[in-house]
């Protein structure tokens, strides 16, 4: 009995020691290079199975949606006609804007200046409480940490880890994500945070401001984490916060995060370095 117990205890002790050591080294960042190398083959397998999942998911979704497509097509054609008129009007405004901006020598980084890298979503984080996606683009493609990630429907998140061939993106629906925003109509600013349910929570809007249900939420560009004027979502159900100091609201992104297949990484976003000002304040 004693002979049996000793190797068992050793095995348990060794397994716990290995696990705890790995956790400490990983928390300290010592394992980062090894983790980055080990992720390369895993990203390769993720790419293969991610593609298969996408095909199966698409087929199932298309079969389910085929009935409603005809009606949807009709609605879209009507919307298109209305939008074409609006686009013509907006083009006029854009040309006025360009002319006036040139007159006052006002320059800013616009969407046309951004360099996009298209990437497939190859997987999702295995931790159920974390909303992170894996992409098949890495440092080899010019991707770096903090690069914003978008789709044509709006903001997706930002890059938090990069390997040579892949990267991890923290979604705006993750609880640790916070985006400085501006409401399109009222121009009030606030903060959008993720929730575990996958919805967005809008908060810290001044009580003297206004949240109009259905209003568009755009990135404000404050704190320079994201470029300004990227669509984040739409607000609903505005209310006063529990402490009655701010207005808050629920929000919904136009991006279907559960069906994300392809995204765009902005690889040349250069935020203004605000740390210089923080250091000055500390010195004073």
């Amino acid at each position, binding site marked *: 009995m004693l002979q049996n117990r000793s190797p068992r205890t050793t095995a348990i002790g060794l397994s716990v020691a290995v696990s705890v050591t790995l956790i400490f080294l990983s928390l300290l960042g010592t394992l980062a290079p090894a983790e980055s190398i080990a992720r390369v083959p895993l990203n390769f397998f993720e790419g293969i199975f991610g593609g298969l*999942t996408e095909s199966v998911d698409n087929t199932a979704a298309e079969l389910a949606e085929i009935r409603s497509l005809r009606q949807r097509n009709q609605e879209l054609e009507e919307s298109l006609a209305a939008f074409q008129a609006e686009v013509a009007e907006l083009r006029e405004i854009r040309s006025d804007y360009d002319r006036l901006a040139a007159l006052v020598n006002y320059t800013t980084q616009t969407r046309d200046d951004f360099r996009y890298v298209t990437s497939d979503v190859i997987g999702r984080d295995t931790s159920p409480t974390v909303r992170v996606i894996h992409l098949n683009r890495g440092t080899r493609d010019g991707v770096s940490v903090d690069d914003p990630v978008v789709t044509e429907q709006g903001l997706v998140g930002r890059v938090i880890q990069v390997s040579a061939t892949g990267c991890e993106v923290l979604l705006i629906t993750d609880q640790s994500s916070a985006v400085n925003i501006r409401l399109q109509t009222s121009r009030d600013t606030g903060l959008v945070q993720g929730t575990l349910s996958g919805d967005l929570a809008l908060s810290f809007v001044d009580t003297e401001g206004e949240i109009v249900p259905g209003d568009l939420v755009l990135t404000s560009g404050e704190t320079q984490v994201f470029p300004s004027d990227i669509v984040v979502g739409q607000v609903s159900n505005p209310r006063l916060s529990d402490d009655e100091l701010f207005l808050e609201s629920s929000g919904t992104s136009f991006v279907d995060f559960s069906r994300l297949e392809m995204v765009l990484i902005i690889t040349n976003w250069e935020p203004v370095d605000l740390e210089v000002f923080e250091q000055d304040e500390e010195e004073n």
Partner: protein
Amino acid sequence: MAIYYVGFPLLLLAAVFDATIRTLLRFWGGGPNRGVLVVVSWALVVDLREALPWAVMGGVFRDLLSVAPTGTSALALVIIVVSIDQLIPKLSWRNVILPLLSTALATIAYDVIALVILVIDGWPTPGLQTITYVIFPGLFVNLVLVLLVYRTVASINQFLRPTRASLL
């Protein structure tokens, strides 16, 4: 040694499936944790000393596809495997109920341990929402899948170590 050659690709596939095919099997926001399913099933059919390397290996693969520090899932799975080893002799009904009960306890234990380490790493505490959106849905999907995984793992073990025939 064949056990380890089988375990390596099986656990690697389980981790990759969790990061990819997981999205197809979601229920109320939660998905299956195949790492837990494979390791629990393996721990039910083999000796502790054979189950522990699978727990460490499966955990590391899983953590490499996660923002959690490497070793988080390994530690959680080692604790689960040791707990199962301690509980099995006390349970006389080694049948369908045993994998279900083990999986239920293992899923909850895994989520709690992983959550604690994520909080230490600086990720926010989700609070009660975790139960509604993560633990219960994940538990349900794991319970639906465990018998299939258990039978598969038991068959692999039987294939690798066929029982010797004996003459009466």
